[in-house]
């Protein structure tokens, strides 16, 4: 251990580089050279990559615990510095924050929280790689599958080990991309490809929230590194008016009495939570997870049980110091979690597809994790993530091995997953049955199993703790809020126990409904074709899966059973909580335990046990003893309710109608605007106008010479008229008007012109002189009218007058309306020439 520590010092912990590099290299090699390596080569490459990474993670974890252990040996190690090994690769880019530049590095770090998560990802990942090496053995895209799986492990590690929010975002989107590729793995069918697309776009909506959160953090906190964020909480605690936006003229009914203000941590936390909802399939954005079952089963096990969906909770745990600053956000997190738990559990009742049941149970369990994290019990919430990874992973893999067995005879996709075709598999698949039962017990919360400890810890903490507001005036959750969450949780737990055991009894108990089992039946090729027909299928008995599939099941079942001992508060075995204490130290200071709540711990444990008994017993009674008849009775009694629940409360159709409908309509209007309004106006209208003018002018070209000559004569006549009539214009030089007040008028010259000037209303006297300029002086704020009369050589005269005013800054000129506007502008239109040119003498 010593030379490891010397080789990898704490602040330049390049071991992380190796941990990340291995899956990446594995993915690249499988992806590019997969076909040439063949199945064996690809399998060894993929397994060794993830395995090696797992070993390195173990080493890193060991160094972490030893470093941590050295400080706080034994119990209650006290608040010592967060042991964090960081490795900075290179400077990614710098952004301009509110006051200073924000450097963003490609940096990775491991601390107790991400250490444990790292182990889960690589450990469970390795098991699933082993499992799928057998499960996918007959699939043509074998190498492509392992490339995507390795890429997924790499992205998940980047997400977990990211030292700042930007690198976390890289992993976040990378994981979204890999789930898109893996869900849509069998892209041949439209349904599966669109399931992948749906997953990516829903995740993308979540990423929108994360992007906005990051922008806000850059602006307010001036950094994205988790460690510096934790210390810069003072910069964050300020208020910001959210609505109405200043400067935006809004209709009056939109403007509330006093502007809605929200504290910055609330806004950031809510934005982050939008990201978590997208990724961890919470209520509004959970729709992609059930459809994601279109992917191969190991994918569902890895992504939709163990790793990716837990990324949301990891983010909330990682930024716990931020969430805790705003009780409102914590309440929202806990509330959404509870509602999702109950909602998903209700749907799972009526599902007949085994994987769909497990999918909805995942959504519901995620709800529980958010309840835990939302009510301040970060350690408990995150512990539920671990235990869930084990038992849900095991459940999915059991389902996989069952489907694998059913596939030998029933080849179409839906049929092999439908529980109605299963039943009585206890006898044929003992190991799968045993592991399925253990995981079922764990998830249902049978006492002493890991599920029991983690779920009840979450519920207890929800019941007993409250978030204190750091700033005065912040909204604080009402006192009864914890209890309401607890009630929803218990109700959800009952449903969970019921539907899990329903699935268990339907698959493993009763008699086999798949096909008539014929002893010694040789499943030859010909058999498959006619098996498609509706007629009674027959084939060999479903046999147990090979060791590559059952070994991971056993390991996971073991952890599902004994995982709870790591953090069993009632038994005072809180090793994990102490291990994580430094990470959640700063957050837990805000979490206050309600008075007298601790005493309630044991009674609530009792409630937990009874919940398990009620749920499991009910399922046993309905499905094992009565063979499912009460279920049919219930369906007959409330057919419409059953149908709605079976159609998943028609949430997809609702989204289709509203959200997609709205965007579709917007798209159509945009295209219409583009084609008719913009293209129409700019392109076609101008073309039409020019054509119009063209046609008009073409009429003049008659082709007859005399018409042109007549035109010329008219032109000459007009010119003649212009020359003959006199024109009176004058240029006013008012440059010195403001300073000294004198103005000079210079009349426009003309052939044989003579001028006569007059001031004010004085009659025109005197004869026409050749003096073309005239100047006068104005007092302050005085307005004067000057009249000019012009006579040309033919005796025609015309007259015009100008008014000028000396503006003295206090716009006294404009004050008097009568004086006309301030700027000197020739006032009267050109008068008709005083006398027709033909007229006699002046």
């Amino acid at each position, binding site marked *: 251990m010593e030379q490891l520590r010397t080789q990898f010092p704490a602040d330049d912990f390049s071991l992380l580089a190796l941990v990340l590099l291995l899956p990446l290299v594995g993915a690249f090699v499988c992806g590019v050279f997969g076909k040439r390596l063949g199945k064996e080569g690809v399998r060894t490459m993929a397994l060794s990559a993830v395995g090696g990474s797992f070993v390195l993670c173990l080493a890193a974890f060991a160094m972490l615990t030893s470093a941590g252990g050295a400080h706080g040996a034994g119990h209650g190690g006290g608040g010592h510095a967060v042991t964090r090994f960081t490795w900075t690769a290179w400077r990614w880019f710098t952004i301009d924050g509110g006051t200073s530049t924000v450097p963003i590095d490609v940096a990775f770090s491991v601390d107790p929280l991400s250490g444990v998560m790292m182990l889960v990802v690589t450990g469970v990942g390795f098991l699933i790689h082993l499992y799928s090496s057998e499960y996918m053995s007959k699939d043509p895209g074998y190498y492509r599958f392992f490339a995507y799986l390795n890429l997924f492990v790499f992205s998940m590690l980047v997400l977990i080990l990211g030292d700042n929010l930007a690198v976390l975002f890289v992993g976040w989107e990378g994981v979204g991309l890999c789930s898109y590729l893996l869900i849509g793995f069998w892209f041949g069918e439209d349904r599966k490809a669109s399931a992948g697309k749906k997953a990516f776009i829903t995740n993308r909506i979540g*990423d929108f929230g994360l992007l*906005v959160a990051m922008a806000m953090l850059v602006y307010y906190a001036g950094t994205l590194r988790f460690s510096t964020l934790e210390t810069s909480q003072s910069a964050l605690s300020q208020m910001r008016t959210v609505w109405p936006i200043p400067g935006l003229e809004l209709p009056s009914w939109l403007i509330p009495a006093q502007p809605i203000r929200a504290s910055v941590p609330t806004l950031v936390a809510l934005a982050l939570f939008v990201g978590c909802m997208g990724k961890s399939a919470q209520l509004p954005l959970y729709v992609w997870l059930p459809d994601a079952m279109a992917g191969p089963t190991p994918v569902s096990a890895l992504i939709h049980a163990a790793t990716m969906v837990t990324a949301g909770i990891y983010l909330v745990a990682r930024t716990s110091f931020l969430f805790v600053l705003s009780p409102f956000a914590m309440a929202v997190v806990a509330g959404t979690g509870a509602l999702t738990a109950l909602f998903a559990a209700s749907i799972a009742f009526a599902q007949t597809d085994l994987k769909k049941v497990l999918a909805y149970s995942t959504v519901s369990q995620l709800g529980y994790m958010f309840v835990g994290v939302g009510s301040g019990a970060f350690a408990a919430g995150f512990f539920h993530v671990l235990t869930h990874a084990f038992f849900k992973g095991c459940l999915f893999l059991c389902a996989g091995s069952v489907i694998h067995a059913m596939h030998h005879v029933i080849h179409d996709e839906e049929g092999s997953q439908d529980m109605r075709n299963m039943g009585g598999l206890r006898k044929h698949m003992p190991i799968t049955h045993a592991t399925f039962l253990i995981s079922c017990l764990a998830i249902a919360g049978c006492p002493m199993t890991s599920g029991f400890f983690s779920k009840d810890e979450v519920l207890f903490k929800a019941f007993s703790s409250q978030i204190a507001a750091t700033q005065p005036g912040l909204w604080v959750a009402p006192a009864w809020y914890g209890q309401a969450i607890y009630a929803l949780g218990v109700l959800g737990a009952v449903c969970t126990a019921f539907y899990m055991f329903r699935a268990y009894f339907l698959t493993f108990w009763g008699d086999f409904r798949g096909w008539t089992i014929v002893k010694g039946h040789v499943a030859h090729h010909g058999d498959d074709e006619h098996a498609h027909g509706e007629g009674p299928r027959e084939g060999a008995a479903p046999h147990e899966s090979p060791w590559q599939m059952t070994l991971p099941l056993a390991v996971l079942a073991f952890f599902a059973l004994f995982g709870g001992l790591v953090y069993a508060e009632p038994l005072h075995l809180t090793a994990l909580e102490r291990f994580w204490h430094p990470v959640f130290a700063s957050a837990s200071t805000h979490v206050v335990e309600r008075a007298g709540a601790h005493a309630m711990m044991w009674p609530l444990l009792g409630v937990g046990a009874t919940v398990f008994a009620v749920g499991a017993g009910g399922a046993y009674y309905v499905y094992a003893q009565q063979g499912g008849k009460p279920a049919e009775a219930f369906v007959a009694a409330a057919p419409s309710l059953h149908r709605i629940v079976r159609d998943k409360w028609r949430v997809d159709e609702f989204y289709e109608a509203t959200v997609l409908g709205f965007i579709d309509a917007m798209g159509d209007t945009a295209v219409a605007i583009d084609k008719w309004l913009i293209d129409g106006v700019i392109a076609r209208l101008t073309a039409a106008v020019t054509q119009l003018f063209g046609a008009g002018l073409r009429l003049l070209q008659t082709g007859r010479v005399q018409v042109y000559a007549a035109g010329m004569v008219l032109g000459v006549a007009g010119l003649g008229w212009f020359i003959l009539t006199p024109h009176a214009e004058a240029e006013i030089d008012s440059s010195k008007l403001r300073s000294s007040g004198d103005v000079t008028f210079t009349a426009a010259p003309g052939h044989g012109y003579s001028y006569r000037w007059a001031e004010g209303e004085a009659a025109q006297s005197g004869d026409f002189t050749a003096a073309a300029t005239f100047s006068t002086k104005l007092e302050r704020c005085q307005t004067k009218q000057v009249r000019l009369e012009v006579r040309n050589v033919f005796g025609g005269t015309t007259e015009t007058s100008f008014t000028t005013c000396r503006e003295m800054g206090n716009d006294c000129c404009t004050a008097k309306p009568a004086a006309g506007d301030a700027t000197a502008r020739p006032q009267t239109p050109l008068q008709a020439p005083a006398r027709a040119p033909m007229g006699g003498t002046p």
Partner: protein
Amino acid sequence: MSLAPVIPALLAAAVAYVMPRKAATKHRIGLAAVTFFLLASVGWLWPDGTQAVAKPDAPTSTEWPYLLDFLIGFPIVAGLFVLFLPRQMPSLLRGVTYAVFAVSFVASLALLAVPMTPGWHFQHIVPWIESAGIRWHVATDGISVWLIVLTTFTTPIAAFASFGSIKSRHKELCAAFLMLQGAMIGAFVALDLFVFYVFWELMLVPMFLMIGIWGGAEKIKASVKFFLFTMTGSVLMLGAMLYLVWTHHELTSQWTFDYLALSRVVLPDTQKPVVMSAQFLCWFAFSLAFFIKVPMWPLHTWLPDAHVQAPTGGSVVLAAVMLKLGTYAYLRFSMGLFPFRSAILAGNLGAFAVIGGILYGALCAWKQDDIKKLVAYSSVAHLGFVMLGLFGATPSGIQGAILQMVNHGLATGALFLLVGVLYDRRHTREVSEFGGIAKVMPVYTVLFLIVTMASIGVPGTNGFVGEFMVIAGTFVSKRLNQFGAIEAIGAAFGVILAAVYMLGMVQKVFFGPLSNPKNKHLDDITPREALAVAPLVIMIFVIGFFPSIMTDRMRPAVESYQQQFVHLFSDTPETPLAARLLPRDMFPPSFLVGAPDAEAGGPSAVTEAATKTAAAPAKAAEAPKPRSDEDTNRARAARNEEIMQKFKNLPLRKAGGEP
């Protein structure tokens, strides 16, 4: 040039050599060479902190002054020369064209060898038309250097791709490409408004020919529409340019078209009807020409038509480089010459960019059934991001915008190349014609997916870095004052729509059942086509992971430009009632190097004294200091404050008086 970066690059080259399953060695070597060069360039260009520290007046002897003239002139002259070559030998024509492109690309790399300190580099001034004060004034700085390299990088690729598919009139095609490259580089480096206008117009001609001759069905209509749209815009710009020059003459009785001199002119701004104020009209004329080119919302309808009808090579160059001229010119000329007006209108322009550009472009793209039209509308969306970055006018916003310009060039260029591959096989681009071709063309699908992810902006590719810098910059921007937050959120929302329309198209084309019988035996992407796309894909990842090789060269220029922009438009805009000439000391001394009167040495004593005093503190602020971030921020804020003070106590000069 330490050897450290060479080893990983060699390794990557070996892998690239082995990667293609069945390809002629010629293409394998090509691929390996491209990989080696691009990855090694990361090492060589890696910022070792020498950028900002280099003293501003360090001897720039290493800069060969004629480099920019060579970059502009060489392709144009070669284009003319190619016209004289015999028409019957297309291979000779192609050979000459490749040689010219190769030489100009290598020459453009010399631009990167010099540390881009704030101020002009490779500046070359030759008096051209003395009577009108027009000078051949070309220079580059941090902002335009990468756009030049982008031009010399993508045009050869476009030519290489189009030589593969276009079989008629080789000579005209080569000439068109060469002249196009010369004109575009000219437009990027011109600092004399007249020279800029010449290249701005010259650039249209080859593209007009390309669309018109080798275009699709209604190519004439599209090329005429393209030409008319840009022409009307640039004619307005010419009018405004002349007015500006005339005002400058009124103020200093000296004729000059030089950008440095004209940027000192402040046109009268607000009369009662704002539309009548000179600065608004000039700004509007300039910006209209650039908005048409970008294209911004109402003036964008020429782009889809032009792209649909343009040949593959033409489309690539149009998307990769020509659109960037609009955004670059807005940054350089509109914001440079009229800081007051562009700052005041930043808020609503930002809304225009978000709603009209990002969201509208995405919605339209979603509804298109022609892949090229879809990619064209996606360009409108991406460039909406770029414009938002520019309107925000924060250092990271502008850097993000410039980075996004380069990214868009690479991603959309690659997209058009790949669509060209499909078009060559099926001679149709209707999405409904394709379905499930991932089975028949696996390698092509992988390439297309990588480029789609870059276009969507998945982190790890270049799209994300640009978009995130723009969003963060908009959020922080003071120019957008209270709208910054909303516009940033709108832009972030655009990221979702990008995923919607791109993946929608990818699903319809690649995934799903192989329904259309014609697609059954499409052959996969040939090594030659893959070689054309390879450099772009590699650069997507290189910029995705190592954007600092680019941002580091941009930052000094962008920061000094942004300071100048903020400083000219101090936070309390005192709108000038009459035309006024700003004193020289309000500009960083490195900016005015090469300004016309600087040579004439004629300015009155007042400004002379002022420049000396300003130069002293400016030099002190930029004195070499360690590259830690806190000091740069403190120095920057102090300098900013001190110049702001000078701007406040500026005596109000009389209208039209000598400064």
